[in-house]
């Protein structure tokens, strides 16, 4: 898939229209929030991460924000990724989240050289195409940077 449709895959448009995890959950238990902003377009995201008691596993990720379809879809996909891990294994381990964020960043900065693997990134793999649009990388990264920052504070 090339051109515009390679960027705006069906899945991305779906997520942006029907976002998951949108609406900040209550500040229950061990949690932290991060506000991130893309100074170029003014897009913002506020993202809350909630952890289990010993702070090792992520219970959920919720967010609020306004922005382009890429930034909205990306936040939604990130939220789903964490939610699935929580369902399957009682929460995504912190280290795993950090690794995912790192891998995501690397792929997006690769100018299209690295494809995100569907097995690992689930729906977010559809964001691979963003790497070829350097001006949009920040849009896709916004929620992921917010999670990274929130984890550092939690």
């Amino acid at each position, binding site marked *: 898939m090339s*051109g*515009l449709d390679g*960027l*705006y895959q069906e899945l991305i*448009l779906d997520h*942006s*229209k029907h976002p998951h995890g949108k609406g900040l959950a209550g500040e229950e238990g061990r949690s932290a929030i991060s506000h991130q902003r893309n100074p*170029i*377009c*003014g*897009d*913002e995201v506020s993202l809350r991460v909630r952890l289990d008691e010993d702070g090792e596993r992520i219970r959920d990720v919720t967010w609020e924000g*306004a*922005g*382009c*379809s*890429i930034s909205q879809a990306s936040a939604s996909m990130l939220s789903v990724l964490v939610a699935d891990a929580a369902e399957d294994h009682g929460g995504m381990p912190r280290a795993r989240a950090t690794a995912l964020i790192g891998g995501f960043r690397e792929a997006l900065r690769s100018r299209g050289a690295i494809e995100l693997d569907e097995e690992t990134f689930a729906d977010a793999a559809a964001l691979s195409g963003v790497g070829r*649009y350097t001006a*949009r990388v920040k*849009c896709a990264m916004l929620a992921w940077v917010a999670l990274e920052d929130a984890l550092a504070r939690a």
Partner: protein
Amino acid sequence: MSTADTPRLDAAALRADFPILEQTIGGERLVYLDSGATSQKPRAVIDAEVAFLTHANSAVHRGAHTLAAEATELYEDARATVAGFVGAEAENLVWTSGATAALNLVAYAIGNATAGRGAPASTRFALHPGDELVVTETEHHANLIPWQELAARTGAVLRHIPVRDDGTLDLDAAASVIGDRTRVVAFTHVSNVLGIVNPVADLVALARAVGALTVLDACQSAPHLALDLPALGVDLAAFSGHKMLGPFGIGALYGRTEVLEALPPFLTGGSMVTTVTLDEADFLPPPQKFEAGTQPVSQTIALAEAVRYLDRLGMDAVHAHESVIERRMMAGLREIPGVRLLGDAAGAERVGIAAFDVAGVHAHDVGQFLDARGVAVRVGHHCAKPLHARFGLTASVRASTSVFTTEDDVDALLDGLAGVRAYFGVES
């Protein structure tokens, strides 16, 4: 000027003067509607700079060898040419690296006067706590933040003239905002978002009545309108070369003689001094007083070529052409469902800039969608966040014209926009 008298301009033919327009973007013809951010350069401008670099390149005002003398002449001729383009004399034109630098120059020079620097005459610019600086709600950040910072450093108060829903300035409010405490009124000639020409004469009259200094941001007027800055009556005015077919890295500050003479210097260094000891320096008269360091000589020469290019077309013809394009663009935009124009004041004098919101589709997505069709527009807040906030937005899409913008270009924009909401699945 009646349309019959106005010289015509053949925009489609002018495209051939701009080498970058030969490009295709993903196979599509490049429709460049981002001249408001930076203009493209005609071949003549690029050639003038290359010719200088390969034949006369040298630092100026510093030496006696042949290249240096030649460069100095070209540099001072360029000053006279660009000054003439805005109706001014050479000695009233200070080279700067751009409009941002020019506006900062003014704000910092006033700060320096406040700190007791400059000639005795500089004290007239010194600010005192409670003094007021006035801007408008339509300002570009370049004509807003320097004044915020000056206010913060000096204890002065920053006030603003509000904008009405239709994008015009609220002149009634202006008359009450500008008062006895007002020391500076800084405002844009044309908003880089709305494209509306502000009422310079009214604002100058209000400022003059209270003895305030007027600072005009002419960034978006200089490329599009015939300018006569002395006739406008402003004390100071700033513009950027890269927005008027010239190169990056060069712009100018125009100033009335007595204002430039009285303002303290801003940047200090070489080529702006008379005597210098280890302890203190004396400064040359304007414009040199404000031109510290090695000047961007090749860029001044290229900018002079750019204004000669515009002069050959005739600024009345440029404005007439861009008005035709602008009206077609605005009319077309009004008809697209979901498109909301920012500042669509009926009967307002305008240049070819249109900013709008597309309901349900983020500006970034609109821009990307258009880009895939070869249409380059700007998306974001265009460095005018307060104005966007005024209209309840964080970002908008902006299309802006140049001398080479054709009706086909406008139609490509309108065709693209007609399909954008469907693509992103927004019902209309």
